[in-house]
Every structure is written in structure tokens, then in C-alpha cells.
């Protein structure tokens, strides 16, 4: 199966029903995308498919074929997306495990709505759990990156 991952053409041999998450992690070695629940309940596995935030743990890889897949590793070639910078500047992460998913959800939000309201931020990130409880800083970092 041919996949477009972070702008590169990749070829994998996989059951078409295998969730994209495991293709990325186990077959392509892209471990920035995390497993947290397997049922689209926590958002740790969030990636972009043609610019939309999706939960890769419930997305069969066949549905990703022919689409542009972007993971945290490919969000910005220099790792300097405004969200990544804001996250570092505000010291958002605690354990860091959920943050790639948080950033991918926030990036899809900002792409669709560059100046989001607080309600939009809450709604767009409601699917991303953070057990360390960094939500207040996440909101602040999204606002900072958006300049609102």
C-alpha cells in the first residue's frame, strides 16, 4: 500500500484494516503519535488526514491511502510551528505524552480558524485528554500561537 506521510511516499505491507496508528508506529517507526486508548477517546493518536484532525487509532490504514498524512514529526520541517514554539515558551507539557496529539488538534483548529474563540479552543481540544492536567496552559498556548 502506498502512503503519503509527511510529504514522503512510503510503501507498507499491511492489512488494510490495521489502524493507521500502528502502521505509523510499528511499520514506519514514527513514534511521535501515541497510543492512549484505542477507541478515539483520548486523542493521543491525533494526526492530520488532508488537513483534518483524525484519531489514527480507529482509522483503518485503507482510509488514509491517497490522502496526505501529517504526523507530529511532519507538522513543521524545523519543529518551529507557532504552536510548538508557544508550547515550549509557556512550559505547557508535564509528562509530554499527550502533547503531540494536543498540538495536532490545535494545529487543525488554527488552520480552519486562525483566531479561535475560547469556546472553539475548548471544543476542538475536548477530545484530547491530559492526565497531568495542563489544560489551562494549553489554552494559553493556543491563544498565544493565534495571537489572540
Amino acid at each position, binding site marked *: 500500500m502506498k502512503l503519503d506521510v509527511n510529504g514522503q511516499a512510503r510503501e507498507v505491507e499491511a492489512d488494510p484494516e490495521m489502524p493507521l496508528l500502528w502502521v505509523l508506529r510499528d511499520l514506519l517507526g514514527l513514534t511521535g503519535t501515541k497510543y492512549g486508548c484505542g477507541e478515539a477517546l483520548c486523542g493521543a493518536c491525533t494526526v492530520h488526514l488532508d488537513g483534518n484532525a483524525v484519531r489514527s487509532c480507529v482509522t483503518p490504514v485503507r482510509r488514509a491511502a491517497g490522502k496526505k498524512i501529517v504526523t507530529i514529526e511532519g507538522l513543521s520541517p524545523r519543529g518551529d510551528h507557532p*504552536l510548538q514554539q508557544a508550547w515550549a515558551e509557556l512550559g505547557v507539557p508535564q*509528562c509530554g505524552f499527550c502533547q503531540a496529539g494536543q498540538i495536532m488538534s490545535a494545529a487543525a483548529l488554527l488552520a480552519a480558524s486562525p483566531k479561535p474563540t475560547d469556546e472553539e479552543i475548548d471544543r476542538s481540544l475536548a477530545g484530547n485528554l491530559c*492526565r497531568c492536567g495542563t489544560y*489551562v496552559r494549553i489554552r494559553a498556548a493556543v491563544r498565544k500561537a493565534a495571537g489572540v
Partner: protein
Amino acid sequence: MSERGDRRGRGASEETTGGAPPSEDRARFTITVSRRSFLAGLAGLGAAAAGLALGVRVPGAEAAGATGAAVFAPNPFIQIGTDGVVTIVCHRSEMGQGIRSSLHVLIADELGADPAKVQLVQGDGDPKYGDQNTDGSSSIRGQYEAMRTVGAAARMMLVTAAAKRLGAPEARLLAQGNAVHDPVTKRSVPFGELAVAAAKLKVPAKPVLRPRAELVHVGTPMPLVDAPGYVTGAAKFAADVQLPGMLTAVIARPPVVLGKVARLDEAKAKAVPGVVQVVQLPAPTAPVKFQPLGGVAVIARHTWAAIRGRAALEVAWDGGPNAAYDSAEFTRSLLATVRAPGEPVRRLGDAAAALARAAKVVEAEYVVPHLVHAPMEPPAAVARMDGGRCEIWACTQDPQTAQESVAEALGIDKSAVTVHVTFLGGGFGRKSKPDFIVEAALLARAAGAPVRVQWTREDDLRHSYYHTHSAQALAAGLDAGGNVIAWRHRLAYPSISSTFAPNANRPSRGEVNQGVVDVPLDVPNLSVETGEAKAHARVGWLRSVCNIQQAFAVQSFIDELAAATKRDPRDMLLQVLGKPRTLGPAELGVEAKMLGNYGAPLDKHPIDVARFHRVIEKVTAAAGWDAARKAGRAVGLAVHRSFLSYIGVVAQVSRGPRGEVRVDEAWIAADCGTIINADRVRSQLEGAFVFGQSLFTHGAITMKAGAVEQRNFRDYPLVRMPAAPRRIHVELIPSEGPPGGVGEPGVPPVAPAIANAAFALTGTRVRTLPLVPVRPVRPVS
């Protein structure tokens, strides 16, 4: 925590000899931020942050001392190369508390090195580092002086070497900014040029610490060194470790603790493409300690095949001795227990007589269910056998216990087991227990290949070490003037000790020292009594442990007394705590040997009511307590001392759009003694609020027929962003006193503060957690 300290019997003593270079493999898998481009992109963060980001690049073996070049390594924590690079080992596990952004600051400050230029290396499990068990909020409070001593020893040797080189007396030389300076001649020698000479000197037996004022970075908000790895996905957690030829295992464990495989048909599992092997694991014996739970492992080429293979297993289980356990029924038996007298653990005056003569008696019962840590990263570990050796990569809070447990399970010497510590995607106490690491070792041996054990979320929720399930009954007697003249607190819950000793069947000394026997109460007649409760699940410690239910009961109850006497809850709280004073065993009404004080001496860490008062004053002032109450805003207050720190919390709640109680804003005042990295302390307290809010609102693990009913975040929900407070304000009280804990103490006052605010809003008292129970979701077959 003394509970664990007692069990371990391992001191925090540290050796300052040796200093083997970190292994190449560790360097390969520890934190690498090799993306220079990322650093370039962070130019806007300023030089300090960028320098730190460089600092987290793991040095190759050469920088760690393997080049043969003379290197100054006076102890296992510090190495200085002739190139001037200062390498510091972080021997504690990073699980979100920010220890990797804190511990090296302390060492570097004492040494005279710039923390921003330090190369940070994560230490493997090794007794040469002393205590590595990263729990009990102990990293700073337990090692503050030890880590300063480590830095001071190296500094003194560098100064001695510099004195010789400069022909100047040692006394006037100053180590600062990675060099030794002579303020008289204005000459300086960089550390790198002193490394060879310093390495030839004797390590001072009694290093002299700097005056506190010379620790220039301690207490300031230092950057989060691992931020670049976290935000680019480069940070390596246990499940991210990939070895050549590695297989992945997912395990079907008995649903009931001490259950066994009764029948197994593995044919369908083996037919799943990608499945390599099915392995039955040995069943544990009581007490379970850190043994794996047994069951059947499906080993496959990748995670998806392992998950599908496990689903295809046909297993029938023997329930074993815990198969009748029903947590709802257990609640009723706990309540019956606390309605009868128990075994006294704290006594002053005559509580029974004072209750009998009181003008008014207030009684309340509190129930807190089993809870589970649910770190975002479920347990995972990688093991590789090589001849008689075993190498482990794991998200462990306690690498030395992992090393010992793996050695025991494999029947090899612990010197043949290497444990590399990855990042932990949250720990909260779960990852102190190495059962999942032992599984990886057993399976790597069985498979003859490296194996990663991956716990699914269902595994994590259904096979954990659970926070205990408790009931407490409180009664207070008030005189006609509204003064509290009697206080009776009865508590019953299965003890953590039951996981390690078969006959432990009531709250232990360590457990009642978490907000029961150590609470200052200005009440002349006191009785605290424990009741029997037998464990039917693996009971373990979860962030702040028994402080959770005990602070919830005590701090809710004082608010109830305020309501019963129509007093301002803050005034009632101050009255019950009493005037500023320190309390010892006699004043508390406990035997001296019963007072654990988190393993700290009382003269250094007294139970100090003035510090309670200070955080109450600070937090209520910040929240505008009087104005808020006058304006009819629903605010609730709680204060608690745990792990030697004092935390006051005010929560403000309102009705949400569906009539639900929602937390709008929170204020926290913290007196944690000396703090190292102010921003990480703030972030811990912010996070602790949300952690406490989750357990108040949703947290409940229930068990039927001995098995956990919850499966995933659908029925073990956590607070999500829309429910998180709009703002969490943190006030840190400046202190040069000895450090207290930080990771855990923020949690206990949260649930009672929200409960008290909810009462102010609704007039209904929440005495049974959680506020919003969630019905378990049945598995789809």
C-alpha cells in the same frame, strides 16, 4: 512515604565513588534532541532555552567519559571533560513533575556551573545513585542536601586545583559560570582546564555547602528542558523504543487477582496473521507484591496482530479466592465497620463522654471508591536477553526495584540486569510497580527475541494496583457557644500493606499518618479509630495516597461544622486548627512511634499551625474570599499538609449549561519550603488541581465478581478541557526552609474545596465520591 520506606528498608544513603560511563545503548535511547533545525526554530525563546535544548542532547560515549581523555568524575553524578562540558546525571524518573528540569539546577548551582549549559544524562537503575524510587514526592525533599553535597565536592576539588594553578589561596576563589575566578587578580580558569588536575585530588570527606544566597538559580522559574522533545514527538517513551527483531506482546490476564487459566485454546489466536507465539505466564502466589498477574501472552510482529491475537484467544478463567468481591457490597460492610468502635490510634481526653454531653452533635460519613492512575501512557516495557544478561527499557518510577524483580523472576543475579529509564507518560504511583517489566523479561526469554509488552487502556484500568476503597465516619460535639469539644474519626479501608503481607487488614501506621493522626486539631477530646478491612484487589499507592480520602473527609467535615453553626468556613477552619503552634506526639495525642511525618524528623519539619494559617490567609486573600461570599459566589476552601508541604485551595463553582456543578476558577497557595524550579512547582500544582477535580467529579473503579467493571475512558472519564477551570492561580510562599514535597501535596485539598464550594452553591453535601458516577460500559462481544 514511610509506608513504602518501611517496606523497602532501603536508606537514601548515597555512595560517592565509582562512576561508570553511561552505556552506549542508553545513550541511544535516552532523550535525544538532535534536530538542530528545531533549535534554530526556537531562536525566539532566547539563549537560555536554546542552550538548554542543546544540553539535553545525550552526549555520546565520548562526552560521557569513554574517550580515554582525562575526565573529572568525582562521583556518579558529575563529569567534567577537558572540553569543559559538564555532564550531570538525573537519577530520578521524569514523569511530568519536571525533575529533569530541577535536579541539575541544584547540583549546577552548588558546583558553579551554568544550568543552561549542562549535558543531562538519564541514570540507569543502579544502587550507586542511592535512592531512585521516584515516589513519595521525595526527589527534592529527600535529596536536597545530598545533591548539593555532590556539587559541593566537585566544586571544592576544582577550587583546590585552581588555587594551585593560580598560586592563590583557595579561600578567596569563587566557582561560577563554569570557571574558577580570583577576584583579586581578576584571573579565571575554566572548569575544562582544571579537569585533569582536579581528577587527581582526593574527594573531600565533608564537602562544605555554599551559603544559600549563592544558589542563584534555585527558586527561579527555569525552563522546561525537555520541551523540544515533547513538542516534536522526539521524546522517547517506553513504547517508542524499537530494537532490531523486536516482537510485541499483549497479554490476557485473569480478570480477578489470583485467578488462573482454567482452559486455553490458542488455535484461533495463532491463526491471526503476524502472531508468532502464544505463551502462558506463571500464576502469582499470595501476597501478590510486584508479581505479574499471569495469564496468556500473544506475541506478534506488531501491536495490531498482538491485539487481534489476544481477542481470538479462547480462555476460561478460574476466579480464585477473590471471585466473590463486590465493591458495592464492600461499601456497606465498610460503613458497618466505621459505625462501631475501632482500634484507637490517636486519643486525647474522653471523646465519648464529651460527645455525650455536647450541646450539639454533628455526624457525617464519607465514602471514596477505588481509583486508578490511568496515566496517558499505559504501562509498556521492552526487554532483550543476551546470554545470561537482560536489558530493559521501561517507563519505571523505580528502576532498582525493577532490576531486583526482573532478576528474581529470571533467576539471575541483579548485576546481570540493566534497566534503562525512558520518559514516563505519567506515573502517579502506577509505574513504581514493576509487574509489567517482569512480564517483558519473561516473554523475551520465552521468545528468544526482544519483546515489547504493551498494555492496552483496558489492561491499565482492569489490572492495576488500585487506590483503596474507604469509608469514614466523623462525629463532632459542639458546646453551646459553638466550640468543638469532641472529635471522633473512624476509618476503614484495605491497606496497601495487604499487597505485601497476607494478614495486613487495617489502615497502617504509614496510612494514618496521611492526614489523620498528623492533623492539628484544637479539640480537647479526640478519638481516631481504625477498623478492619480485608483486601480483595491489588491495593497500591496513587498520587498523594490516603491523603485523598482523609483530607476529603476532614476538610469537608470542618465545612459541615461551619454550616451547622452558621459560621464562615474559614473562621471555623482556623478555629479547629487552633492558634499558631507546633505539635508533637503529646499535643496530637499519638504515641511517638506512631508519628511517621513522611520519614522526616519533627525538629526539622514540625507540624506547624502557623504555616497552615499562612496558606489559608494567602489563598483566601487571592480569591477575594470575603467579597466573593458577600457577592453570593460559591467558593469552597480546604487546607492540607502532606509530604511536608502546606497547600490551601479555594475553588469557585457555578451551574453549567446542563445544571451541572462546574469549576470556574481555582486559587492555590503553597508553602513547600525551599523550591528549586518555580515554574515546575506551579505546573505541578495546576495539574494537581485537575487531577483532584477528576477524582471528585468522575473517578470510580467498581468491581463485580472480583473483576473491574470499567474498560476505557468512556466509563472511567477524566476531566476534559471544557470542564477545566478558566484560570488556576498559584501563590508560592517564599521560604528558605527545608524543602517539602511538590508532586503530590497539591491533590488532597482539591476534592474537599470543590465539595465545599458545591455545598455553598447547591446546599447539598457531597459525601460519597464521585459526584457524577458513570455506569460501566459492557464490552461488545
